[in-house]
């Protein structure tokens, strides 16, 4: 759903002393209230994930036979011992959500890291070597993009077997084409620029050209796509968990928690509502941050 804008760069009158790039970036970014909100939420989530063992009031897997499906504290039979209630086998929902943040962030970051690294290398290769190599790589990516993302992920998980690691690998493969395309497009537009030719004339090898000259100048679109990719990765991994193909119980992954809670939709709204809300907030935060980064890093897309 990314829109490619092919506008010629507009000449802007330079102020007397241009601010440093990172300062300029921060000033642009700070104006976007949504992006700052997203960043704050993500910071809180990271803190919660890091300190989950200290913050969480209970163990995420410990069951309590005396407290099945206890409602949150503000409802009648609820108590502050279990602030957000308990699930069907007496586990504390708040603790499971906090530990789930750890899993979800881990999933998002690991999946995107894998996908960005592999995608960038493939994209650089396609952009630099052209010819048959490029056609082979790009065709393969087109085929991957043709299949609906979740369907492809499901097929891959069906082959590898259900589980968190396999689900992460499947989502990474599904996300791969986006990074390959961006990296290749950026390389092709950069390669003919003067600084690359200068480096070539100065005797830089192909490897140096690829990674030290061109790559840093393709970073902005990759960073934006990576941030948005984290939200896709978290959503897709949760969907796989919900379908029983991702993280397996008793892991407190939010999608898996929802799958467990489905049958209690009639009796206990909190076991269904809260894990989904956690997914929504996290994904929304990364999308807000990604939009803000795009506006601040890519002046061409500014309106």
């Amino acid at each position: 759903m990314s829109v490619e804008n092919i506008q010629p760069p507009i000449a802007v009158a330079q102020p007397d002393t241009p601010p440093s790039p990172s300062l300029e970036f921060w000033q642009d970014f700070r104006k976007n209230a949504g992006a700052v909100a997203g960043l704050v939420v993500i910071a809180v989530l990271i803190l919660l994930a890091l300190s989950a063992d200290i913050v969480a009031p209970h163990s995420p897997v410990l069951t309590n036979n005396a407290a099945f499906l206890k409602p949150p504290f503000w409802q009648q039979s609820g108590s502050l011992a279990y602030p957000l209630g308990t699930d069907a086998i007496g586990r504390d929902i708040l603790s499971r959500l906090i530990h789930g943040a750890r899993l979800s962030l881990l999933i998002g970051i690991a999946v995107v890291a894998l996908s960005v690294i592999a995608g960038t290398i493939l994209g650089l290769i396609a952009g630099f070597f052209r010819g048959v190599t490029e056609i082979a790589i790009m065709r393969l990516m087109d085929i991957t993009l043709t299949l609906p993302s979740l369907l492809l992920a499901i097929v891959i998980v069906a082959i590898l077997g259900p589980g968190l690691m396999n689900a992460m690998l499947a989502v990474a493969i599904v996300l791969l084409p986006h990074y390959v395309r961006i990296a290749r497009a950026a390389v092709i537009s950069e390669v003919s620029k003067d600084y690359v030719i200068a480096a070539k004339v100065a005797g830089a090898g192909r490897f140096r050209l690829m990674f030290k000259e061109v790559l840093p100048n393709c970073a902005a679109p990759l960073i934006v796509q990576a941030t948005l990719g984290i939200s896709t990765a978290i959503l897709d991994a949760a969907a796989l968990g919900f379908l029983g193909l991702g993280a397996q119980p008793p892991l407190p992954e939010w999608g898996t928690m929802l799958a467990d809670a489905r049958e209690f939709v009639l009796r206990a709204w909190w076991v269904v509502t809260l894990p989904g809300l956690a997914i929504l907030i996290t994904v929304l935060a990364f999308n807000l941050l990604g939009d803000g980064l795009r506006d601040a890093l890519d002046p061409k897309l500014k309106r």
Partner: protein
Amino acid sequence: MLRFVFTRLSLVVPTFIGITLLVFVLIRLIPGDPIETMAGERGIDPARLAQLRKDYGFDQPVLVQYGFYLSRLAHGDLGRSIVTHEPVIAEFQSLFPATVELSICAILFALCVGLPAGIIAAIRRNSIFDHGVMGISLTGYSMPIFWWGLLLILLFSVQLGWTPVSGRIAVQYYIEPVTGFLLIDTLLDGDVGAFRSALSHLILPTIVLGTVPLAVIARMTRSAMLEVLGEDYIRTARAKGLPPFRVIAIHALRNALIPVVTVIGLQVGVLFTGAILTETIFSWPGVGKWLIEGINRRDYPVLQGGTLLIGAIVMSVNLLVDLAYGLINPRIRYTR
């Protein structure tokens, strides 16, 4: 134009062959011997096993097997389900209309809400309405729809009792499939009660499946509109005194719709992804639920055939969208 059509078509053929190869290889990677899987727990005597392997061509080199697979495919044979022993293609055909009916309703819902919302947001840029629409659509875009479905069931089916929880029509109605679309078939039958039942079963799944496309369409319409509204010819149209409605609806909207049409075409893949989840939540008897059941029962012919058919359908729709796009916008034919 003809050249453009041929270039596009020539790209489709290798992609389709690629999909068949991908599906073939992926299913091959599943550990275990398919014949032994079919035989199940009872086991099988070695001579019979060898005979079956020969019958199914499993004793041939992989490349030859792929050739067999392609030739069966060309004859419309996608194998049989291990569980029901029905041909995969027949099962797909009987379930596909349910998915299409739901998807069409979802995309219509997304258009009816998303287009006006995007247009008004663009006209009243930076107003409260604009910020509201953008905020809601980003939320919709971030929505885990499997949870959204449960939430709507919780509110409308459980708390308010307005809509049924699952299925496609109440059990007391039996409608002979003519088109496969229940909304049409019930009307052809003249059964108003059945039509109302089918409609009430459709509402929640439509909203759930339409949410992500709705968000995408609203955002896309807004940004396309903003771009077009800044053009000189719009200022000209305004300057010569045309009523504002005419400027927006006739001059601006026509050009703004071009990128929106492409985005709608690209939603087909998104709709299938959503259909898998939506059908699972609402027990909607379509191909998405069928595929998930296929996986849970390790019914690999279903998984293989279904994936291939869905890939082919998405590819065809994308091709049609591309061709339509070339037809509406002549510039695109020469720039690729």
